[in-house]
């Protein structure tokens, strides 16, 4: 980010204070100017930030530095074409009164703001549907406020009926009350989930059906809300790594890498060349694994069980291979701030090649069953189509966005870890239907394998750790044999890696899309606040847009095609 860009912002928003933090421009505005600022960012061709990535609140109650108000709300927007990342911060004087909503500008604000309300109790005027999203409907209080005790659980009995919401959706879609009352045109309500084989986890999908056609759809999530963000506030930076495994558990190592990358970027740490290459190899390998499971499960939804075995067996074999490297099949926890847990073992390269070949074979077999398969074509082509505008407005990223024809990939558009030096393509869809979403995942696997082969060819030797006693644990010989080493080890374990006070956002192209982390640090070894920007969450927020007007059976395969992973969706 250069100085002229900043001047451009300052000139466009004279009442705001703008500064540059890492890769992003941070704009501080008063609530009354919030709407105009966000509208300006979105509509002004000079900025063209049409992708609202995330909305989050911050509670400064225990923050060492005093701020003008206790609560702040932060909107993170992006111009995907020019790699422009902007955060708009606004103080919230009275959380009850709140601030104006951004839902009329960005559809992704619908769920983003609901989460802020649920977790922080900050109101948004004129939000059409402000209610709890992650916590259950009988929950009292707002858990991410600093004065909410982390262990205060609240028992829930029963289930929210969602009747009001689905009726509102029906009204929006132009189904009149009289149609619903008439016995001939009566609408049937059908509920899938929360525990249903089609939901691949716990999600509740409520539909209003006319015959088999979905007239309206409302979804409820939060069944796997495990308090990642609140728990993180009590852990040191390195202790959080195991928790990140469990966000998207189909590609655990990608979360590990995304997380440490975010911390390292704030510390200003440049990891060693070898570690960078390792991270590329491993994250691409995990991208393949993630897509394998997604497609395998999707095919099962369509009735193709044979496909499942071709794809899943490769994944199963890869788990044992991974456990040789990390010690665990699923939950890798393989990164550390400043490098990797350890180097590749001897013989890794040949093992990897063997697995890549098996995987290629598995995918090849599966593709053969799919490509000319009439059932797959009939069921997926022109079904659950989402336009590029809608996808952007709902905050889609990753393969689901690319299927709608938007060629945005952080590996190309904001490269990290030398991605610019690898030769690979970013597949883009033409329609935005289920077929595109499946095929993009198939193609991405081949591209990832290409990257892995290139990276393994040019991976340099050397350490996988940087040398910095403030960040990386000393060698065990030092810990056992001299007092400095021991004290160093002790301090790092107990106090954690200290980060300078401040706030930042950093993101990574995970298997499902942009996985971002928004941190607030008070200078200690534990984050003051940590918010995840999960790709799934916003994709699920646009689910109704994809399925309304389609058949109920299509909704099931659509859910499989967008790869919703509970751990990441609900955190």
């Amino acid at each position, binding site marked *: 980010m250069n100085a002229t860009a900043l001047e451009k912002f300052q000139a466009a928003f004279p009442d705001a204070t703008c500064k540059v933090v890492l890769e992003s421009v941070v704009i501080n505005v008063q609530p009354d100017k919030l709407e105009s600022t966000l509208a300006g960012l979105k509509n002004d061709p000079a900025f063209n930030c049409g992708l609202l990535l995330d909305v989050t609140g911050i509670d400064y109650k225990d923050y060492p530095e005093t701020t003008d108000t206790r609560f702040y709300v932060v909107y993170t927007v992006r111009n995907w074409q020019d790699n422009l990342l902007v955060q708009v911060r606004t103080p919230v004087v009275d959380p009850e009164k709140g601030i104006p909503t951004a839902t009329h500008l960005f559809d992704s604000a619908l769920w983003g703001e609901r989460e802020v309300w649920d977790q922080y109790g900050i109101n948004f005027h004129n939000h059409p549907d402000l209610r709890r999203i*992650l*916590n*259950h409907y009988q929950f009292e209080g707002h*858990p991410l406020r600093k004065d*909410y*005790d*982390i*262990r*205060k*659980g*609240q*028992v*829930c*009995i*029963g*289930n929210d009926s969602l009747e009001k919401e689905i009726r509102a959706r029906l009204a929006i879609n132009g189904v009149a009350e009289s149609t619903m009352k008439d016995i001939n045109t009566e609408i049937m309500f059908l509920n899938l989930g*929360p*525990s*249903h*084989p089609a939901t691949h*986890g*716990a999600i509740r999908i409520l539909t209003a059906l006319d015959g088999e056609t979905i007239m309206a759809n409302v979804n409820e999530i*939060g*069944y*796997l*809300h*495990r*308090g990642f963000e*609140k*728990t993180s506030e009590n852990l040191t930076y390195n202790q959080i790594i*195991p*928790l990140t*495994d*469990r966000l998207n*558990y*189909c590609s655990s190592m990608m979360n590990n890498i995304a997380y440490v990358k975010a911390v390292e970027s704030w510390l200003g740490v440049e990891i060693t060349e070898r570690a960078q290459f390792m991270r590329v190899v491993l994250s691409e390998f995990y991208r393949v694994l993630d897509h394998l*499971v997604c497609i395998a499960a999707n095919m099962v939804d369509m009735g193709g069980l044979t496909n499942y*075995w071709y794809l*899943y*067996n490769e994944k*199963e*074999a890869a*788990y044992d291979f991974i456990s040789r490297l990390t010690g665990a*099949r*699923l*939950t890798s926890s393989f990164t550390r701030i400043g490098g990797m847990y350890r180097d590749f073992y001897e013989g890794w390269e040949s093992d990897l090649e063997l697995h890549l070949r098996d995987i290629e074979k598995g995918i090849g077999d599966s593709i053969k069953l799919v490509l000319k398969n009439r059932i797959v074509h009939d069921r997926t082509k022109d079904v659950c189509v989402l336009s590029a505008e809608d996808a952007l407005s709902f905050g889609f990223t990753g393969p689901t966005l690319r299927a709608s024809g938007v060629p945005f990939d952080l590996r190309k558009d904001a490269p990290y870890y030398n991605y610019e030096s690898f030769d690979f393509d970013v597949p883009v869809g033409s329609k935005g239907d289920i077929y595109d979403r499946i095929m993009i995942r198939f193609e991405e696997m081949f591209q990832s394998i290409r990257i892995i082969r290139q990276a393994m060819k040019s991976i340099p030797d050397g350490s996988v750790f940087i040398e910095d006693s403030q960040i990386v644990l000393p060698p065990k010989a030092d810990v056992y044999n001299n007092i400095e080493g021991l004290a160093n080890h002790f301090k790092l374990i107990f106090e954690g890696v200290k980060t300078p006070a401040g706030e930042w956002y950093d993101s990574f192209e995970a298997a499902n899309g942009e996985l971002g982390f928004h941190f607030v640090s008070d200078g200690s070894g534990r984050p003051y606040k940590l918010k995840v920007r999960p790709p799934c969450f916003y994709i699920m927020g646009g689910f109704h847009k994809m399925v309304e007007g389609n058949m109920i059976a299509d909704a099931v395969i659509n859910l499989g095609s967008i790869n919703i992973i*509970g*751990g990441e969706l609900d955190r």
Partner: protein
Amino acid sequence: MALGLEAKLGDNVMTSTLDYIVNWGRENSLWPFVYGTACCAIEFMSTAASLHDISRYGAEVVRFSPRQADLLLVCGTVSYKQAPILKRIYEQMPEPKWVIAIGACASSGGIYDNYCTVQGIDTIIPVDVYISGCPPRPEAILDALMKIQDQIKGETVLEDRHKDFKGILD
């Protein structure tokens, strides 16, 4: 649960022979209902896949309706929001039924000691076997299945297990 003739007969040679036959049938044809919520469910998928092949133990008929299942596998974290659903599914399963808590989360809340996570599903429903691990390996899941089979061997049709159970939702 004894409802028919065996209830009248009580504990005698007839019922113990009946036990033997019934248990033999039950233990080798468990029909699981997979209540998969999180990461542990992926390991269940591995258990069912070709390599570990759960059908070697007669338990491959995974049912997606609790009404047709007699083994509840709880794989993953259960939050307070989910607790009523889990309880309802358990109640919908006909007797006799067994429950395995797969993984640290289902057994005790695991690493999530916080406001939204139930600290062990045995606060909601009775559990027969717990598996440690985060996630447990597929072998551990098979091991738990064999434990259930062993347990079934010693059961009798006369006894009504867990009738006094009281959880936080009762």
